[in-house]
């Protein structure tokens, strides 16, 4: 042991060094983590459990939960089971979830279309991407003007082909789909940029080899390209599903839940019950949030499990 070992000397001449110095490597990570953990616990981890607790109470948000709130056990959940508006919201969430996934193939299609080297293509790529950078509030406003009955651009264009009197956001049958379409706009841009990056990193030799082997068009796409884009697809799935379940801004801006409550989703209904209605119903709102959280937890667990597998493979 004449040469200094690469591994730090964990057994130095102990007497000369202070306690901190001796345990530096064991203690440092916790010192570095401390502020982050404190913040994250106070604002994220603990509130999750608190919401579970609040959901068991009848509480208007005034005063202290234990004093002003009334413990009603699963009462809120029993009420949810027969709440027609809750059911509508839940179904709308399902619609969001499935239709939002269209952003992935659409994003891939645009990425394939733009994956060329011609003059100015970089600018095209950024302009295609930039709906994602705009806030959802503005996207919502932009689309609600686009959908305006009679005077909106969509109505004008439909008028050219002889379709009159369409009021997308005014009719309960179409309003949710209109909002989802607006949401797909930035989300497709996001998926597109993920795929463009993926395409950029692809191994050109493999593609050339496949081409020499006669792989063409759809076969090439399905057997060669898409498998190589797997990491991008995974992230696209994660962000799209999370985005679909988080949808709130667009609904709040474009229809505020209407017409006749037909565009509510769980996240919006929860907000409405807890804050926007007369006499805040915090307990009932929290119960809705818990249901939404449990739905999301299914996906979160799956994502974490996949990431954990990767993590273990990397070790």
């Amino acid at each position, binding site marked *: 042991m004449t040469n200094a070992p690469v591994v730090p000397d964990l057994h130095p001449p102990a007497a000369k060094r202070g306690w901190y110095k001796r345990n530096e490597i064991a203690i440092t990570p916790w010192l570095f983590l401390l502020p982050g953990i404190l913040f994250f616990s106070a604002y994220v981890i603990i509130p999750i459990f608190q*919401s579970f607790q609040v959901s068991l109470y009848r509480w208007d948000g005034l005063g202290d939960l234990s004093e002003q709130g009334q413990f009603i056990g699963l009462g809120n959940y029993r009420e949810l089971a027969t709440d027609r508006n809750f059911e509508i919201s839940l179904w709308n969430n399902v619609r969001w979830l499935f239709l939002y996934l269209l952003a992935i193939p659409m994003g891939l299609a645009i990425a394939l279309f733009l994956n060329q*080297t*011609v003059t100015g293509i970089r600018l095209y790529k950024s302009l295609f991407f930039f709906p994602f950078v705009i806030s959802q509030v503005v996207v919502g406003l*932009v689309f609600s003007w686009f959908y305006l009955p009679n005077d909106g651009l969509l109505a004008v264009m439909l008028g050219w082909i002889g379709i009159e009197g369409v009021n997308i956001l005014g009719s309960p049958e179409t309003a949710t789909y209109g909002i989802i379409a607006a949401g797909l706009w930035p989300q497709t841009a996001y998926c597109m940029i993920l795929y463009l990056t993926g395409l950029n990193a692809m191994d050109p030799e493999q593609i050339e080899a496949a081409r020499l082997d006669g792989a063409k068009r759809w076969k090439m796409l399905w057997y060669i390209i898409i498998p190589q884009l797997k990491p991008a697809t995974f992230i696209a799935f994660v962000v799209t599903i999370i985005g679909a379940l988080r949808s709130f801004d667009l609904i709040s801006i474009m229809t505020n839940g209407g017409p006749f409550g037909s565009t509510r989703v769980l996240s919006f209904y929860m907000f409405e019950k807890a804050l926007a209605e007369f006499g805040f119903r915090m307990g009932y709102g929290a119960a809705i949030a818990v249901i939404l959280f449990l739905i999301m937890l299914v996906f979160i667990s799956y994502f974490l499990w996949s990431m954990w597998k990767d993590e273990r493979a990397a070790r």
Partner: protein
Amino acid sequence: MFPTPIQKSSRQWQLTYQALLPFALILWLLPLIAVMLFSIKPDSDFTNGNYWGVPGSFDLFENYGKVFFDSDMPRYLWNSLLITVPTVIGTIALSSMTGFALGIYRFKGNLFLFFLFIAGNFVPFQILMVPVRDFTIDLGLYDTKTGLILFHIAFQTGFCTLFMRNFIRALPFPLIEAARVEGVSEWRIFWYVVMPLMKPAVAALAVLIFTFIWNDYFWAIVLTQGPDSQPVTAGITAFNSQFRAAYHLMSAGSIVAALPPVAMFFLMQKHFVAGLTLGAVK
């Protein structure tokens, strides 16, 4: 289907492609172009029902001037800036530390903590809403920018920790070992060895967080009210009720509200995309 490089394809397809590009782009941005057109039209166009025709007059300066001098818009914009910038700084400070701890050291619970941060970043906002609002009221920070900033810092730390940790993982570890052998203390390793290498990650996160926070709407309406502390995303609804049915002004207002992140994106495009597509390639 993988596009054959355009240079290798027929002349005819090359020309078609070049023509198709601007056409597709216009179609894609149509709703936005419509709003831009609205924002330069005079009031009279809307009362006369001339929504889509040639603008009666070019009123860009009048409309945007009204937004800036005749409404609360500048206050809201200023609030947004005062909320966004401290959040960016705070988040990067916290997450570079957590990322460093989780990326460099092996200790029990490392992976658990890491996954806790990731999981927290995915939860629906609504499950946090009631307790966070309550907590903010208890701290006496309801309807203040500080209350909003503190929450944003805490929540964004989840995503940023994921980002920073993976970035640090990819750094050459022998560098740190060498510093340790030299007897450099861990704190100095963080500051003098790791941080300088983190500049690209910091830049990427800064633009991403700026955009996320600028565009936040949900927390703005949960934790604040009124023009004293509300950011522009929430303020725009008040603005729109002030100018109800004045489409030219509402359009101009929306464009102004959306502009800062857009400018940020075009200025820092490389970093922005690098941050957003983290993990999209192996």
